[in-house]
């Protein structure tokens, strides 16, 4: 029936880019044949998803169980080896088997999007994946980081010769996390996508596939992680910022030893994350400290205002890069000016849609406005956190012994595994410095 049809040449095909074909059988170009040979039409069965509702809820249950196990190992069993074994199990399960998504780190985006976009609702499983580690942090500290997070455990396993970073560098890098958090949320809220997920360094390794840059970043971070312990967790992870706040308020937190500290400082040396804080004597010069505090408080509004302005300017400038609507409008305008329509698929699809040109401009303007606003808030947040940290650094506690910093401690358990008092207390007297 088709022999008489003229074979269309390649040129003709290329011109017709997207003929809208109705799915309605009544309008089909070629009617369904009437088979005489008794041929039975097969039915295509799409392959079943790797995930199902049951599995999704099982994942949530596994996450809860892992958090509970990590808390038990860190707070009650006090077993570094147990935590290590749980880390390996988490690496295998959450990483290699479940292959990364969705993880609590990325769920920040889903929550942020659900809060600003009434069309997007957060499935309950995602909400739980976001909330469970935070609740665990409020109860027991950062046990999620200790042995559950797939991004964390892969780095924890390669810690080999950790070095201590200079205080200034450590604190400056420590500001990156809040920045990533603030701008990650800002970009999502402005409709520019999930930027934290896009720069997840290790998910490509778990999937054994991904953009070359992503895989290279992951391997590079792991190599750095041999000497600078868990660089992503300490300096980039936005979820870690939330967890550190939760951990500061935690009901219980891992301790080095319940016995009296003998101030041997082995725990301080054993901590690869520089999270053990020593005794803090009161200020030598109280009036100088007061002046520093006053200065810091005066400067705080300036920091907030300056950072807010910078954040607004940055997202405004980046708008064509980060937001598809702004990029589309720019390309449309360039094409209009040059009389060269449809250089990209995006502009071609827009023109095919028959939408008036103004609606693209309006969408771009709205996106730009939202980006500016989101940038302003994100910048202000970063400035606020910075100012807060400056004020906090003036303060002195009356601490007399060595304790983990609740915010920065990842509850990995290396400190109590090195504590001589623990060896005495537990009767393991064959040597205090058993490397875990």
């Amino acid at each position, binding site marked *: 029936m088709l022999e008489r049809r003229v074979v269309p040449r390649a040129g003709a095909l290329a011109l017709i880019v997207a003929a809208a074909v109705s799915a309605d059988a009544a309008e089909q170009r*070629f009617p369904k044949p009437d088979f005489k040979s008794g041929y039975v039409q097969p039915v295509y069965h799409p392959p079943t998803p790797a995930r199902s509702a049951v599995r999704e809820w099982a994942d949530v249950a596994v996450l809860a169980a892992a958090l509970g196990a990590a808390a038990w190992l860190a707070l009650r069993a006090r077993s570094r080896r147990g935590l290590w074994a749980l880390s390996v199990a988490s690496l295998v399960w959450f990483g290699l088997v479940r292959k990364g998504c969705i993880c609590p780190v990325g769920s920040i985006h889903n929550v942020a999007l659900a809060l600003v*976009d009434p069309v997007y609702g957060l499935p309950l499983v995602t909400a739980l994946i976001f909330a469970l580690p935070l609740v665990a942090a409020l109860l027991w500290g950062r046990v999620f980081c200790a042995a559950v997070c797939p991004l964390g455990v892969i780095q924890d396993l390669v810690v080999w010769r950790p070095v201590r970073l200079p205080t200034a560098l450590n604190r400056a890098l420590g500001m990156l996390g809040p920045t990533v958090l603030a701008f990650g949320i800002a970009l999502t809220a402005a409709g520019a996508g999930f930027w934290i997920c896009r720069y997840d360094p290790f998910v490509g390794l778990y999937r054994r596939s991904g953009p070359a840059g992503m895989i290279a970043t992951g391997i590079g971070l792991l190599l750095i992680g041999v000497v600078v312990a868990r660089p992503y967790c300490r300096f980039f992870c936005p979820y870690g910022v939330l967890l550190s706040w939760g951990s500061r308020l935690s009901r219980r937190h891992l301790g080095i030893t*319940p016995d009296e500290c003998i101030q041997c400082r082995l725990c301080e040396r054993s901590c690869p994350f520089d999270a053990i804080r020593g005794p803090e004597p009161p200020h030598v010069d109280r009036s100088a400290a007061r002046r520093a505090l006053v200065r810091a408080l005066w400067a705080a509004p300036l920091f907030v205002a300056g950072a807010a302005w910078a954040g607004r300017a940055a997202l405004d400038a980046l708008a064509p890069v980060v937001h598809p609507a702004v990029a589309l409008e720019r390309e449309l305008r360039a094409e209009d000016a040059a009389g060269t329509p449809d250089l990209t698929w995006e502009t071609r699809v827009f023109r095919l849609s028959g939408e008036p040109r103004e609606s693209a401009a309006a969408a771009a303007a709205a996106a730009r406005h939202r980006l500016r606003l989101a940038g302003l808030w994100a910048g202000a947040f970063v400035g606020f956190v910075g100012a807060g940290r400056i004020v906090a650094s003036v303060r002195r506690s009356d601490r007399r012994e060595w304790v983990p910093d609740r915010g920065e401690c990842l509850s990995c358990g290396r400190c109590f595994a090195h504590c001589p008092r623990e060896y005495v207390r537990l009767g393991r007297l064959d040597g205090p410095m058993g490397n875990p």
Partner: protein
Amino acid sequence: MMTTNSSSAGSSNGRREFLRRGAAAAAGAVVAGLAGVAARGAVSRDGMVWQINPARCVQCGRCMTHCVLTPSAVKCVHTYAMCGYCRFCFGYFDPGAPELTTAAENQMCPTGAIRRRFIEPPYYEYSILEDLCTGCGKCVKGCNTFGNGSLQLQILHDRCVQCNECAIARRCPAQAIERVPLAKWNRMKSEFGAVPAAVWQHREPDANA
């Protein structure tokens, strides 16, 4: 045995501890509230999966190149119910093909992933060899432009790792990749709606929300 590291007692310490408990309770309420408010409009209590809306797809070829997986989780699938069983299939044959034979230079598919089987004159059955298909969409374009459109690109859920943000969706020029509730993962082409007017528009959060 559970330690909290607050061995030194004192009224100030007690007050601090009390404040911390209060703040922790407040923070817990905030987390629960955030999750609850975020989940209020949820389409599905279970998760969502990514799916291609064939009515929007323009076969730009990015599904093959932009998936985080190699080979891509997007492949061509065949809705037999829509097929015309054409002898000259526009998805199977290259438009420049001089003869209607299975020779390499006549086939549209660069990997030969479409199998053609004679049924009765003049009808042929076409089926997709999933392992060979790269998801380039060349056959889909041919079938949609000149045929019934029974070939479509779709995300195969046994391969898809369900990234939180689908890397193809991000680069899809027609916003054809959408999140659907897990329960609706197996919709075929005829079950999707027609092309909405604003296919180009990236979904924006409502400005006055």
